[in-house]
């Protein structure tokens, strides 16, 4: 149970180390081409994997770092764990500066993607390992291990070796090994990625339950936005080493700060259309061929507060917010996916792909090949700058 503060954290890898992983011809400095093609910033110092990372994690908060591969989320977690050196910035756990403190002295525990269980030890020995090192009395070790095993429902497997367990059970043991120490901060690095879809859903629910039971600070890394949305009190969306947005799941979903976040959070992805933001009689309208929609009052206020000028913009509307109408954005349906309670129509709108979710109540109409018109409400339109890709409301 502790507050974790990250102040302007940076991680820079020497070009040689990073290049080896990428299969580059390794030199002390990156070549022009390597600088051009790398999605990460390459300075004379090296490859910058994480930069300007500042975050205050409250005591007992569940924070999820989410982003695509190579965005720096795992690197950040490993810096918090002490497994990676911090190139710049400050890390505080429970008020104490931790930059140079060894992992074992940070009072943290970590669950790895690959479980990282000790294969020659039984489940009980795996869970008791850290306590034994701390020279905890045997009775206390037994009590703590049994408690953790009960929480995770692995009491029956305590005397088995990891090889005799299924993937889900192994991951439970890995979590058990972490919680048995009662750490200040529990770090989880994509703990569900190795599990199949069904087990992942189950384990996700287990983690939510676990969180209520053990009541500590969680920092969870995932590339799966569903996990991020369902688990986190707050989500940190990352891209190319930078934080894109820090907010609650609902805020991130409702008010994405830029095009990347808008596209990354939400399934299916948000639809993006070229549009014009126009000002008529002091009111903002968004216009795209076939439709002109007046933005909702709160959006009007925010745009006015930022003194946003009429301009060409990218309009974002989530598939579930688009509706079929008599008039509106015209598109030809290419594919119709029946999902049971709804139907996903994949269509081409002015040469771009778009998806609309249509409820299936009252029977499914076969739209494939037909031209349909889409409309939306002024409340659900997201307006992004074409230049900066930022949400113009914020």
């Amino acid at each position, binding site marked *: 149970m502790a507050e974790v503060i990250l102040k302007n954290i940076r991680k820079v890898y020497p070009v040689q*180390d990073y290049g080896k992983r990428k299969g580059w011809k390794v030199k002390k400095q990156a070549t022009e081409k390597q600088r051009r093609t790398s999605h990460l910033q390459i300075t004379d110092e090296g490859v910058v994997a994480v930069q300007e990372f500042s975050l205050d994690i409250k005591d007992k908060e569940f924070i999820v770092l989410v982003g695509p591969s190579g965005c720096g989320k795992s690197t950040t977690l490993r810096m918090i*764990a*002490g*497994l990676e050196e911090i190139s710049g910035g400050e890390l505080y756990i429970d008020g104490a500066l931790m930059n140079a403190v*060894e*992992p*074992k002295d940070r009072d*943290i*525990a*970590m669950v*790895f*993607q*690959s*479980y*990282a*269980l*000790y*294969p*020659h030890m039984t489940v009980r020995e795996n869970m008791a*390992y*850290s306590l034994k*090192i*701390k020279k905890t009395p045997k009775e206390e070790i037994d009590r703590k291990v049994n408690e953790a095993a009960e929480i995770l429902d692995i009491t029956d497997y305590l005397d088995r*070796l*990891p*090889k*005799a*367990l299924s*993937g889900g059970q*192994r991951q439970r043991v890995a979590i058990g*090994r972490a919680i048995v*120490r009662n750490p200040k901060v529990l770090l989880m690095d994509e703990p569900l990625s*190795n599990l199949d879809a069904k087990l992942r859903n189950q384990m996700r629910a287990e983690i939510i339950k676990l969180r209520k039971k053990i009541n500590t600070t969680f920092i969870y890394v995932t590339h799966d936005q569903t996990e991020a949305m369902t688990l986190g009190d707050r989500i940190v969306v990352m891209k190319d080493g930078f934080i894109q947005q820090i907010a609650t799941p609902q805020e991130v979903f409702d008010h994405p700060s830029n095009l990347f976040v808008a596209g990354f959070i939400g399934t299916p992805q948000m639809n993006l259309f070229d549009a014009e933001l126009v000002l008529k009689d002091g009111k903002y309208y968004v216009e795209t061929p076939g439709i002109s929609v007046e933005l909702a009052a709160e959006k009007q206020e925010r745009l006015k507060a930022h003194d946003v000028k009429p301009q060409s913009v990218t309009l974002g509307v989530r598939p579930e917010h688009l509706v079929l109408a008599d008039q509106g954005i015209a598109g030809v349906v290419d594919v119709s996916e029946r999902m049971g309670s709804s139907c996903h129509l994949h269509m081409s709108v002015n040469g771009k792909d778009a998806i609309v979710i249509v409820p299936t109540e009252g029977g499914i109409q076969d739209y494939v090949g037909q031209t349909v018109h889409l409309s939306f409400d002024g409340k659900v339109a997201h307006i992004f700058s074409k230049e900066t890709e930022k949400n113009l409301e914020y």
Partner: protein
Amino acid sequence: MKKDINKSAEIKLLITRIVVYAILIFLAFLCLFFFYLMIINSSRSNAQLKGGFTIIPGGHFLENFSNAWHDGSINIPVGMKNSFIVAICSAVLTTYFSALTAYGVYAYNFKLKNFVHIFILAIMMIPSQVSAVGFIQLAFKFNLTNKLWVLFVPSIAAPVVYFYMYQYLQATLPLEMVEAARIDGSSEFKIFNTIVLPIMKPAIAVQMIFSFVGSWNNYFMPSLLLSSADKKTVPIMIAQLRSADYSKFDMGKVYMLMLMAILPVMIIYIILSKSIIKGVTSGSVKG
């Protein structure tokens, strides 16, 4: 028509099996025949042995044993003890320190890491006889002859064993496991001893056998460095019996000593072979 295809497939399978078994039997015969021959010969008298080759056992087993055991020029229990000390110490030191070095190079990032790895491998290309000349000179200059530890201490540096251990670590030890142990509060040395070594058990078992057998059978270095009777190892004693003059030369005795010499090796093999087969890492990480 369909029946014919199945029948010809069955015949093909049968022929393949016959050929495979024939080859395996032949190879097994090649491996075991010489052991059998040695056991037979150890039960035959010198005169019978000079008479020629046979596969029928003789009746002089105990006599040969007694002759060898009571031979005045050699002391078998002392030789066995010396050989055992050298072989077991070599095996332990070689495997432990090679595993430690391999782990160090594999798990840590440091400057010149690749150079260190390549340098150790390059040493493999130098024949041991070449470096032995210098070592023997050193041993004589520092008056280190007739000391058993001189034979096993250099085995700490074993590039071939290092390479084997390094390869094994690459295949079996995910670094996440080491990191997990670090977070659990283990010191670096403790991680090696309590996590890495047990995972390396199969590799250690294999290398222990090789190292034990190599040291047990080693004649070259002990013959140059050991001269006093109480320090001699078994291979020196076998050579001593073989080089005895015509009047004392007894082939039965030599075969008996050879038989006695291979027994500890076989016992060690039986003990360690289980560990080789056991795959201890399965189930530790995904996959």
